[in-house]
C-alpha cells in the first residue's frame, strides 16, 4: 500500500499561512514535525455498508436500532444509492506526543497538531478512496464525508456510529462524556455513493477542520 502523506500546503493552511516568508527555522520545524507525526501515527480505519431508508427525522439504517437524525444529513444523502459509515484514527501516540511537545515547545506542538490534522484527512480519504474503488463496478462513486456534529446531525450520535462500527475494539476510539473522540485525531462520517457524483460543497459546516481552523477563528474562511 502506498505510504501515508502529510501535505505541506494543507498543514500550512491549517496554521493560517498566507504567503508569509517562511524562515529557515520555521521550515525546519515543519519538516521535523511532519516526520515525527508520520513516525508516531498508527493510522487505522474501518467502514461498513448499511441499507438505509429516509424517515421523517433522518436516515434509518435498516436492520439496526439506529436512525441518524437531521435534515442536513438527509439533504446530503439525497440521491445516494448506498451508504457507508466510516471511522479513522491516528492512534493515541499522537496525543501522547502532543502532550509531550506542549510541555517542551508550543511552537512544535502547534505545527505537529496541524501536521496530524493533515494526516488524519489523508487517512480518511484513503478509506473513502477504497470504498470508491470497490463501488466503481456498480457505477457508483463516493460523495463527501458527513460527520456527527455537522449541521443538525447531533454530535451525540457519534456513539451510535462508533458502536455500529465496533470502533472501540477495532480502532481504539473511545468517547468522552461530552461525545468527543479519543484519540483526538479521529474522524467518523457517513458517506453516500451516487450514480452522479454530487458537486463537492466546500463550506465550513461540512469541513472537518472547522474546530481547529485558524481562518475560521479569525472570522474568515479558506475556500
Amino acid at each position, binding site marked *: 500500500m502506498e505510504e501515508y502523506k502529510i501535505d505541506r500546503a494543507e498543514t500550512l493552511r491549517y*496554521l*493560517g*499561512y*498566507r504567503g*508569509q516568508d517562511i*524562515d529557515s*527555522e*520555521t521550515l525546519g*520545524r*515543519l519538516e521535523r514535525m511532519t516526520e515525527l507525526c508520520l513516525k508516531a501515527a*498508527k493510522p487505522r480505519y*474501518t*467502514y*461498513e*455498508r*448499511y441499507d438505509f431508508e429516509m424517515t421523517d427525522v433522518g436516515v434509518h*439504517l435498516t436492520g*439496526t*436500532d439506529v436512525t441518524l437524525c437531521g435534515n442536513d444529513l438527509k439533504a446530503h444523502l439525497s440521491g445516494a444509492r*448506498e451508504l*457507508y459509515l466510516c471511522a479513522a484514527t491516528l492512534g*493515541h501516540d499522537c496525543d*501522547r506526543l*502532543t*502532550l*509531550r511537545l506542549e*510541555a*517542551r*515547545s*508550543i*511552537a512544535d*506542538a*502547534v*505545527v505537529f*497538531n496541524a501536521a496530524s490534522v493533515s494526516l488524519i484527512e489523508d487517512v480518511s480519504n484513503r478509506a473513502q478512496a477504497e*470504498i470508491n474503488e*470497490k463501488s466503481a463496478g456498480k457505477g457508483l462513486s463516493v460523495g463527501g464525508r458527513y460527520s456527527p*456534529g455537522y449541521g443538525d446531525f447531533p*454530535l451525540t450520535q457519534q456513539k*451510535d456510529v462508533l*458502536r*455500529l462500527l465496533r470502533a472501540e*475494539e*477495532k480502532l*481504539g476510539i*473511545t468517547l*468522552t*462524556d*461530552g*461525545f*468527543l473522540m*479519543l484519540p483526538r485525531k479521529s474522524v467518523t462520517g457517513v458517506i453516500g455513493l451516487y450514480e452522479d457524483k454530487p458537486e463537492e460543497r466546500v463550506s465550513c459546516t461540512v469541513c472537518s477542520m*472547522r*474546530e*481547529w*481552523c485558524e481562518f*475560521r*477563528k*479569525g*472570522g474568515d474562511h479558506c475556500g
Partner: protein
Amino acid sequence: MDNFIIFDGGMGTELQKRGMKPGTIPETLNLTDPEIVKAVHRDYVLACADIITANTFGANRRKLGENVREAVSAAIRIAKDAGAKRVALDIGPTGALLKPLGAMSFDEAYELFREVVTAGFEAGADLALVETMSDLSEAKAAILAVKENSPLPVYATMTFASDGRTFLGTDPKTAAIALSALGVDAVGLNCSLGPKEVKPLVAELLRWAKCPVIVQPNAGLPVIEDGKTVYRVDAEEFAELMDELADMGAVILGGCCGTTPEHIRALKRVLDGKKPKKPDIPHYTAFTSHRRSVVLGEGDIAVIGERINPTGKKRVKEALRARSYDYIINEAIDQSEAGADILDVNAGLPEIDERAILTELVGELQAVCDLPLQIDSSDPAAVESACRVYSGKPIINSVNGSEESLNAILPIAKKYGAAVVALTLDESGIPEAAEGRLRIAEKILRRCESAGIPREDIIVDCLVMTVSTNQSLARETLRAVRLVKERLGLRTVLGVSNVSFGLPAREIINSAFLAEALSVGLDLAIINPMSSRYMDIVAAHRVLSCEDERAGAFIEKYASLTSPKPEIAQSPHDITDIVLSGRKLLIEDAVRSLLERESAMDVINNRLIPAINAAGEKFDKGEFFLPQLMSSAETVKLGFEVIRARAEAGDVTDKGTIILATVKGDIHDIGKNIVKMLLQNYGYRVIDLGRDVPPEVVAEEAKKSGAKLVGLSALMTTTVKAMEETVRALREAGCECKIMVGGAVLTEEYAKMVGADFYAKDAADSARIAEKVFG
C-alpha cells in the same frame, strides 16, 4: 494446571445470528430477551466449553445505565441455566479513556468495575475474566476491583494489534510482567488478531508470565467483504492453529470475534487426551511502565535518574507547590533522552499534600515518558496511592529494617506487585560496619519472603555516606555491596551523589565512586544522567561487563563525537532581533549579559516585553503566522527563565495573576496553552487549571487566588454551554474578576451571549485585554 481449560467463543455474532439487531447493546438482552442469550450459551455448553462467559462484557454503568445489578445477575443466572459447568463474570473496558490522555479517573473506573464485580459475585460467578483491555491502568483498576471485592480468581487478557502492541502501546512482555506482578491467576490476550498472528505474542507472554497463559483470538483477521466485516478462519483451521499454541505452553484456550460453537468443538477435539506442558516459572528482576520493560539480566546495570526531587531544587519546589508540572515533565524527558533507564520521583515537601501530588505527578509523567518510575516517599499513604494509579510495575523507594517500615511498606509492595528498595538501616540507625548492613538486608529479605515478595524484587541500598564527614565509610559501603551480592544474591542500588556532599567539584568524586561501585557489582545507580561524566562511565562499564554486546551502543554513541560549535551573536544585546528570529541558542547569553548592567525588572520591561510586542505586531499585520509567533514567545520564555534562575526573592514582581482554563467537557486545549505562554511572556503569573475543568473549580480558584482576570477557552460548539455555566459560577461566587473567552467557534456575539467581559480573537488579543485589565 493438569488439564487444558476451554473457554467458549464469540458472543456478538452468535446473538446476531439469533436475531439481535446490530447496534443493540448486547447486555440489555439479559433482561429483554434472555432466551437468545441462553441459546448461545447452550450451544457452547454442548460444544464442551469448560467455562461459559456470561453476557456481561459491557455491563457497566457507563455503557448500560442504571440496570447493572439486574443485568449482571440475570447474565450469570442465564449461563447457569444453560448448563455451564463454570461461569466467568466478563469484564470489558468501560468505554472511556483514563487520565491523563482521557478524562476518567482511576477511581471512577474502579467504581464502575466494583459495581459489576459485586453483582457478579453475589449472583454466583465462579471467576472473573478481565478482557479486551488496551490500557494497562484500566486493566489494573478492574483487577483490583475483583480482588478487593470478591474472592474470585481473576484472568486478565489484553488485546494486541498487528504491530504487537495494544492501542495504548503496551507490548505482551510488559503486560505479562506487570499483570503477573499484580497477582492475576492467568494472563493473556484476546480479540484483534487470529490464532496464526498471535503466535509470536503468545511466545512473549509465555516467556515472561509467572502464571498460566490464556489465549482467545478471533477467527482470523477481519476482512471487509461487500461492506461487511467477516472472519474467515474456519473451525478446523482454528483448532489446528490453537493446538500449536497449546504445544507452546498456553493452557487456557478459547475464541473471540467470529468464532462459533463449531470452532470450540473442534478445539476440544484436537486437545482431547493431551496434557498441558509443565510450566517453567521464570525468575527475573524487571520493572515496567505501561509500554516499556527494564529487565536486569545477570551483570546488567541500570541508571535511575535522580532529578525529580525537590531537595535543593528551587524550580522543582515551585512546580510541586503550584501543581504545574511542565518543568518536571521537561526534567523527565531530558533524563530519558540522556539515557536514564528508570526515573526516581520524589514529591516530598513539608507544606504540600504529598499523597495527592505524588499521585498526580506520576500520572502526568506516565503520559509523556515511557520509563518505569521509582516511587520515592517516606509516607506510606503517598506510596500506596501512587502505586495504585501507576501503570506498570514500579519500584518503591523505600522500605528499611525497622518494624514500622516493614509493616507499612511490604503489604503495599505485595499488593501492587512492586519491587522495593531495601535500606540497610533500622530502629538503631545505620550500622557502620558492612556486616551490620548485611544483617539488616538479611532481615528484610526474610520478611519479604514471608510476605510473598520474591527475592528478585528486592533491591538493597547499602547507603552511601558523605566522605567529607566520615571518610572511611565509603569503603565500608562498597564492602557491604559486595557482601550483599555474594551472601544473599540480591540486587543492589546506591544514591551515588551523596558521597561528595560538602566537597567542591563533586562530579569528580561521584564519578570515581560510581566506577568503583560498579566494579564491586552495583546493579542500579541513582545519579544525575544529565552529567556526561557519569553516563560515560556507565557506557564504558557496559562494554567492559559485556552487557553492551560488541560495544554496539557505545560505538553508536561515541563514534561520531564532535563538540558542537556555539553560535555567536552578531549583536549580542539586540533582544528584539533575537526574539523575532526565534534564535533560542542566543537569548540566554544575551539576557545574562544585560543582567550585568540592568536590573531584572528593567530587562523584562524594556527588553523582553517590547520584543514580544514586536512579534505580536507582526502577527497582527499578517507578516508572521502562528508558528513564528510561538517561536518568538518561546525565545522570550527562555529569557525569563534566565532571569528567574538568577533573581533573588523580590527582584522580580509579576504583573498580576490570571487564571486560565479550558471548560468542562472540552479536552482540546492547545489554544489555551498558546495564550498561557504569551501571557507569561508579558510577565503575568498564570494559574493554568488545565482542560475539562468544572465551573465550580474555576470559581473556587478565582476566589482563592484573587485573580483579576480569568480566561476561558472552548473549542467545540457543544462546550460553549459549559462556558456560559462557568461564567455564571464565577459571578455567583461573587468573584470580581474580569472574564475573557476565546476558542475556534467563539465569536464576539457568543462572548456577549455567555456573559463574558471580553472576546479574545487570538493569543495576541488576549495579551492586549490583559493590559487593559491590569493597566
